[in-house]
């Protein structure tokens, strides 16, 4: 909100990068960020902001100023991973019936799987199955992939080099999270050791490996399999 100070700051900041180009004043950069974020339904990364703004601009600072400006307003500047978006203030949700989109109701299996990916990421399918004690159906993972809430991460450096799953920026955006570290209760879970990868003692505990003969994890599917 102290624009004048900032304006004197910006030429100095731009100077080392390229003496020929002078970045626009910070107040103007803030306007630019405002226009770009308003125009986009998706979060816009700092990198893309920098690409679209004049050479020498400092989008991070402009975003910070803009965010402060919108404090307490009807829309808010929200961080989503490395990107930024403008979203309506959640307390005004009741005005938005018209905009509300009916989302497909997620199955319990999908919700749990999503939570496990979010809190344990990067996590392999085998690890998800161990935590849930049941094999993960293809449909559950597909649904989450299709929603673009999870995606494939890097392969794990363990035998078989299994693929892992991680949550996406769309996930963060959907649940209004700045980043995956802001997940509710994450610290408590970690402190309680519940996010540790604790292998079963010995090899006697029934692991999901013995269970996953391609059977669906939904209970109805399971019973059907054994019906005749």
């Amino acid at each position: 909100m102290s624009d004048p100070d900032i304006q004197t700051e910006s030429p100095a900041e731009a100077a080392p990068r390229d003496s020929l180009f002078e970045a626009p004043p910070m107040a103007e950069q803030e306007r630019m960020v405002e226009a770009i974020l308003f125009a986009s339904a998706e979060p816009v990364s700092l990198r893309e902001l920098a690409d679209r703004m004049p050479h020498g601009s400092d989008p991070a600072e402009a975003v910070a100023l803009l965010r402060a400006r919108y404090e307490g307003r009807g829309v808010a500047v929200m961080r989503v991973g490395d990107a930024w978006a403008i979203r309506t203030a959640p307390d005004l949700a009741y005005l938005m019936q018209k905009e509300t989109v009916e989302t497909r109701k997620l199955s319990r299996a999908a919700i749990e799987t999503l939570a496990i990916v979010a809190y344990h990421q990067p996590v392999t399918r085998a690890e998800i199955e161990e935590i849930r004690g049941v094999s993960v159906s293809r449909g559950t993972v597909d649904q989450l992939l299709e929603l673009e809430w999870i995606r494939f991460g890097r392969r794990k450096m363990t035998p078989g080099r299994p693929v892992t799953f991680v949550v996406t920026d769309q996930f963060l955006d959907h649940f209004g999270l700045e980043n995956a570290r802001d997940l509710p209760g994450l610290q408590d879970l970690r402190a309680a050791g519940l996010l540790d990868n604790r292998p079963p003692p010995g090899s006697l505990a029934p692991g999901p490996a013995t269970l996953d003969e391609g059977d669906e994890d939904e209970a109805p599917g399971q019973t059907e399999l054994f019906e005749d």
Partner: protein
Amino acid sequence: MQDDSFGNIETLSVADRLAAEALIVDVEGFEGPLDLLLTLSRTQKVDLRRISVLDLARQYLAFVEQAKALRIELAADYLVMAAWLAYLKSRLLLPPDPTEEGPSGEELAAHLAFQLERLQAMRDVAARLMARDRLGRDFFARGLPEGVERVRRVTYSATLLDLMQAYARIRTRDDFRPFVMDRQDVFTMEQALDRMRSLLGFAGQWTDISSWLPEDWQVDPVRWRSATAATFAASLELVKEGRAEIRQTESFSPIELRRREKPRE
């Protein structure tokens, strides 16, 4: 056995039977044996870390017995779990055998308690996650987004050096004779046409076109070739215009031209 168990069921009170059936019907709602164990553990109403795994194993085995009694087919993983819990129960009840290798009954029980606690924790955070303000339900994105128009612009680079090199390349091909010099030895069709148009009126007879060449283009072979070609091309042009006729009696014999008395329209 079947009759016996059936008899057993018969002797249960109605309330018990309903309770048992409710549990059985619910089996479809369970997400596997761990989920069932978690549900059963709730009846102990204690912290999951201090749960009696022994009691839990008993409850689970009782459940499986009941399911058998009701002739409910249980999925294999429920039965695997039952077998494992029966084993665990025996390990917990018998005094530890110091010669036996592998984890103790307590360790196995502790891990099962950990698994249950972890599953419960995941359930809890999943619920908290789903209860958050959500995009499209509680907060909203821009309703009227403006797409970013991609403009692709191609610039072509060429320097003065490129230009000069290109020109030098062309001139090199011509063995350095300046272009204007070339023109001095070229008799163009336009020139030939001009000349022939003015002379055509005198050509009432068949005339060899070689006699139409200008005087000073008949000696130097280069100039003669150019003038001949231009004159021939001009002759064809005049024929095309309908102002002249052309003939050649046989290959390599002289080509003759005469004016056309009545020009074609």
